[in-house]
């Protein structure tokens, strides 16, 4: 207790009466390290959440229901959807049917999938209707009209990723020829063009289920898949269990199981983040080490005098550790405050744009707490080494060299 009291006294005096420039510079370095430790994972976290959200809202839904075994379609879809929508946690469900087709416009021709949807239901599951860049969304009674993703239409936007393999010049209102895999040829007017920012979605084309039944007459009340949207706090596994209770001829996937590309990107981001974190912790440790090392070298004689007059080595060591803690704690507090009240709001106004959409900085309290404890530990260890070395020097050598 006495050692701690003396250590606190020495630490306080050296901070209050020490070189202000050195203290400010050291704290500033640790503020930068803290902000860096928050920024990169915050960005990666934000980008991951943004990617996942866009994937769920524009491509997969929360749960994908498909026929089990060798079946290629789900029968009695209307009853099934009505049953699904009674389950707690389910917002809406939408049936989808896919068919391969070739699109032709002027000299361009490309093969893609056309999906038949009930526009009213699909709008409740997906946000595609909110991503229109031209024209309007489908109505339930629409026939001979198609909704195109920007990566199919091109729409003269040469900066899109797959422009060269798109129809290039298609705009809302244009007419194009569609040849289905059954051999059926049809003319469709482009009702609208959407750009969700998620390439897999923007490579899709939609027609109404009414139109789809005219192309595939045997598909009434059947679907290739059903997409389910859940409430934010709903447990997908529990909902799947409930749906399984309705029918036993269904297979289920959660959105995570369809997110192979997103997952591999997330894993790469996590790896990059870990490498950068190690570098940041090293920078923090080296900063504290250098500051403490220079300090104890400059104060070697003073340390020798303190030991000579009876101040315990452990008090002197603890006083240096307290100073390192002070630098780290102030650096952490200032860094976290600046990050939370300056960096995050500024970034929110000017978010980083990724191919899948904007990414907002997102930090989790658990990560911040873990980062803070690691930074404090690193600072303590970095301060301890030079002090421990000086404490091993004989008193007379410390005083007189």
């Amino acid at each position, binding site marked *: 207790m006495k*050692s701690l*009291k*003396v250590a606190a006294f020495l630490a306080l005096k050296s901070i209050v009466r020490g070189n202000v420039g050195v203290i400010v510079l050291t704290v500033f370095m640790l503020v930068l390290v803290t902000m860096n430790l928050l920024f990169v994972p915050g960005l990666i976290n934000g980008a991951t959440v943004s990617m996942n959200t866009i994937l769920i809202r524009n491509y997969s839904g929360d749960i994908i229901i498909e026929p089990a075994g060798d079946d290629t379609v789900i029968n009695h879809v209307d009853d099934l959807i009505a049953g699904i929508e009674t389950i707690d946690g389910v917002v809406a469900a939408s049936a989808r049917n896919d068919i391969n087709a070739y699109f032709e416009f002027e000299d361009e021709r490309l093969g893609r999938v056309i999906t038949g949807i009930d526009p009213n239901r699909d709008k409740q599951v997906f946000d595609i209707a909110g991503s229109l860049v031209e024209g309007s969304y489908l109505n339930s009674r629409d026939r001979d009209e198609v909704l195109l993703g920007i990566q199919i239409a091109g729409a003269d936007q040469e900066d899109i990723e797959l422009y060269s393999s798109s129809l290039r010049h298609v705009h809302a209102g244009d007419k194009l020829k569609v040849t289905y895999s059954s051999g059926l040829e049809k003319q469709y007017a482009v009702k609208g063009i959407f750009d969700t920012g998620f390439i897999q979605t923007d490579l899709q084309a939609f027609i109404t289920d009414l139109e789809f039944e005219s192309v595939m007459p045997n598909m009434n009340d059947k679907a290739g898949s059903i997409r389910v949207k859940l409430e934010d706090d709903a447990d997908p596994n529990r909902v799947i269990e409930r749906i399984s209770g309705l029918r036993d001829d269904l297979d289920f996937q959660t959105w995570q199981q369809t997110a192979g590309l997103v997952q591999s990107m997330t894993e790469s981001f996590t790896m990059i983040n870990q490498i950068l974190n190690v570098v940041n912790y090293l920078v923090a440790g080296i900063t504290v080490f250098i500051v403490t090392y220079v300090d104890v070298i400059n104060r070697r004689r003073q340390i020798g*005098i303190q030991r*000579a007059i*009876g101040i*315990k*080595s452990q008090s002197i060591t603890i006083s240096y550790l307290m100073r390192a803690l002070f630098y780290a704690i102030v650096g952490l507090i200032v860094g976290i405050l600046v990050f939370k009240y300056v960096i995050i709001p500024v970034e929110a106004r000017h978010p980083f744009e990724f191919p899948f959409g904007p990414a907002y900085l997102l930090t989790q309290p658990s990560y911040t707490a873990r980062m803070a404890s690691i930074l404090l530990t690193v600072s303590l260890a970095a301060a301890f080494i030079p002090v421990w070395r000086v404490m091993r020097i004989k*008193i007379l050598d410390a005083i007189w060299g």
Partner: protein
Amino acid sequence: MLQVKNLSKIYGLGDVQVKALDDVSFTIADGDMICIMGKSGSGKSTLLRQLGLLDRPSEGAIILDDEDVTRLSDTARGILRLQHLGYVFQEYALLAELTAHENVYLPGMMLGEKGIDFRKRAKELLELVGLSKRIRHYPKELSGGEQQRVAIARALINNPRIIFADEPCANLDTISSKRVMETLVSLNKEMKVTVIFVSHDPEDKKYARGLLVLSDGKMVAEE
């Protein structure tokens, strides 16, 4: 009582060994005031550092009240220095970031004896050495003589039984030297503290009641 038996200190400089102290023996009674004299390099500061437990002798024993303190651990020696010994360095050796008052009470804070207000005692000691108006001053704001008197007050904070002073007036002018030496004499007389000081100035003999003279590490005279 402080007994020194056959004390030797050998410094190794490569293959060459230098005997800074050579078989020195003497006894100092409690309350005595002893001056260690000798030419430069005679080993007087080396002897004082062994007695003050700042260094370890190569051979021999230092016995304090029938206890051999020569082979004690560093921690035990530190506690002994804190509780019973005071050391005044030639170059004042004050802590630059602390005021005169803080410099004096720091060892008291470390010892932390119950019932003793070390801050109050530090003020009293600064008054005793004539620095009551300088307690809030930092070492750089004090003259050499004042700094040395702060160092003496610091050496007294834990009521030591022995004060070791290593050429306490070496860097001081005549007036300051006289004041510092008179302070030590007064402490010896009034507080019954044993004072052992090193000096190369023959004039300082007059302050002591006993004299040890060293030459080439050997004790050549004892009065």
